């Protein structure tokens, strides 16, 4: 009905498990990554595409999404589960994931094509990654990014019956996908363009995206954002236990 810590933990563990599995697949099968990591020097566009058929690129992109994005979906999936009839929860969750996934797959087309072009034109160059990386840094600090992050926290009330319920969760997925893409497009694009260090960059971006979702919604303005809540939380957990300051002394 509302947030319950035990139910939340069960869902979180399941979703994190799926993400972890995807990471393992990616790490064990380096080619299962949409980044070409290919030596495209002197290769024609046709040959390049033949080496990386669209279906394969799409599959690899989807795997990357599952690995990196799944942890961010615990909250909206929880909202769906407590808002739906028990018999519809799995169906509603799948429809939500479909809506969310569609947006990111469309974004993936743009990103992967741009990546292919960059690799083909400037094989081994760090320039494309540098340009996109700098753009990502500026975007990260911008008020537009904050607005998108804020919207990611927003959960619409959902219809409960029939086609209206299906449509609502699908639309919810599309909305979450749109705000998520708008928030993270630059950070997701950056690792794709690195000639080397792609997986490390992927992991770093995944950590950034997870940490920034821990931050509560805030006023959109220019500021460094992403690790505030996570850093404070870690710092407080790592601090040695403080002696009881006996509130009376401080207040008398």
């Amino acid at each position: 009905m509302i947030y319950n810590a035990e139910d939340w933990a069960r869902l979180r563990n399941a979703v994190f498990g799926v993400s972890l599995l995807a990471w393992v697949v990616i790490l064990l099968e380096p080619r299962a990554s949409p980044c070409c990591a290919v030596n495209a020097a002197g290769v024609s566009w046709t040959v390049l595409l033949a080496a990386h058929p669209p279906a394969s690129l799409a599959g690899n992109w989807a795997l990357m999404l599952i690995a990196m994005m799944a942890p961010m979906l615990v909250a909206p999936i929880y909202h769906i589960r407590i808002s739906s009839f028990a018999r519809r929860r799995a169906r509603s969750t799948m429809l939500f994931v479909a809506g969310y996934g569609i947006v990111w797959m469309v974004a993936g087309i743009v990103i992967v094509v741009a990546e292919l072009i960059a690799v083909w034109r400037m094989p081994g160059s760090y320039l494309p990654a540098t340009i996109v990386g700098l753009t990502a840094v500026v975007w990260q600090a911008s008020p537009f990014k904050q607005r998108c992050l804020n919207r990611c926290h927003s959960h619409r009330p959902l219809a409960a019956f029939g086609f209206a319920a299906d449509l609502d969760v699908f639309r919810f997925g599309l909305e979450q996908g749109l705000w998520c893409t708008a928030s993270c497009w630059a950070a997701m694009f950056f690792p794709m363009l690195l000639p080397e260090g792609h997986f490390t960059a992927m992991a770093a971006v995944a950590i950034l995206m997870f940490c920034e979702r821990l931050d509560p919604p805030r006023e959109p303005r220019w500021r460094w954002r992403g690790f505030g809540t996570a850093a404070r939380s870690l710092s407080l957990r790592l601090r040695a236990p403080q002696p009881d300051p006996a509130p009376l002394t401080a207040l008398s």
Partner: protein
Amino acid sequence: MATTYTRNNAWNKGGNLTNPDLLWYAKGVGKMMSRGLNDPASWWFYAAIHGEYVTPANIQPAFPGWKFIKAPPTVPTSPLPVSGNQNLYWNQCQHQSWFFLPWHRGYLMALEAQLRKDIVGLGGPATWALPYWNYFGGTNGSQYQMPPAFAAKKLPDNNPNPLFVNMRYGPDGNGNIYLPTPAGEAAHPGDPNFSRGQVNANYMSNDLYTGHDQVTKLPGFGGPETLFHHGGGTSGNWEGNPHNLVHVYVGYYGAVTAPLYGLMSDPGTAGLDPIFYLHHSNIDRMWAVWNANGNANPTKSAWLTGPTTRKFVMPGTNGQPWYYTPDQMKDLAKLNYSYQELKSPPAPKAAGLPKRLALLGAKDAAAEAKKAPATPAKPKVTELLGASARPLKISGRVSKAAVKLDAGVRQKTTRSLAMAAKTAAPDNVYIKVENVRGTFDATVLSVYLDLPEGAKPGENRQYLAGNIALFGLRRASMKDGQHAGEGLTFILDATPVIDQLHLKNEFDVESLQVSVIPADPLPENADITVGRISIYREGF
């Protein structure tokens, strides 16, 4: 052990300025009001710790922006504190959270220490402590009226009384501040065509701080488990009633004042009104009574240590920040104050399981349950039973929504009610009023189930599922606010109404009609929308 201060009943000595606790409170408040907005020892700074509408992130083009508050008091809007102090102290109040009670306890302790320091500086008693307004107290509950000291415009020395506030309108919108407790209602019967939600202490019968069972509805007496939570979501039971209702009724609005409403009705202005702290002193006192009645606070470290993302902190009287945790606040006996009275109000007449079983025709089971009361069972399943199809705009005298029921889930509840004699574990049924958004905090809405057409709600309380006060609505609805504009969500126990419908064979229906009725006619442009009304069953 440090001195134990005693917080006294504000109604001592007639509740007027001959009561030294109130006279010195007034003087202390006046002293704090003389300081600037940026001074951590100022009245205004302390109010902003709770919530504010004065920083660029929260500034409003009209009331409740602090710039538009009608004096008295004259509220400064500059100079703002340095950003470090704003980030450290301001906008901390914990609402719709299990931190609601301990955070406010620390808040009051800090303010009280500052006031005492100023009062002593003015020649007052070193034993001074913050009084409480026990709106359930007095002979036959007569203390539902605000102590007269707060209505006096002048102090005995003819200076303006800092306890008096212009924007405090009361349930009749005329500055007469009383609360519709059972005694208050009897003295001020409202219009039966509307529904004035009663302020009561029924949730003192809860047995769980967080969570739910057969006698405690979600989210529990103290509130739901959260991280640092400045508002939005679902209020704890004690926060819902009496806390939220008192806030709304003391502030409120009138036909001539609307769309303005009283300072107490909005968390971003409530801390400016000196009555706020006497209200919270009572809320705090009754938490202590609830504990003394044998009810435990949470033992999870997530509660004890407080949120890890932002610590609770108040300005210390020594100029240093005072950090505190719920663990330090949980036991009144370990703190430096106590209360003049630490007893329960008259025990609320909770139906209890035996009475309910008897009502459902399970007389033997009822007798068994009465003979050997067991620990209230925890629900085995909570699931959606029905929901409305579209958002509901709240306006006028009554707003209605059809809540369609799922036949299969409804049958589970019907079966459990019919089998009560055998199982002694009939379902509980709750209404969830979700994603209430808007900008008009100052109203109390009563939620009725299947109220017959033409029936006067005030005379047909048997159909009443519960009352919701919209304290915190505006801030919870801000899209870039801490709760992403989700608004407020309320959970009401519809079990007694469903039992009655079941007994009249009126529950096996396709849908139930929910009527949302305000306590008084809403202003024409009052902006309130309910995202969804849903019904849930809890099976045991």
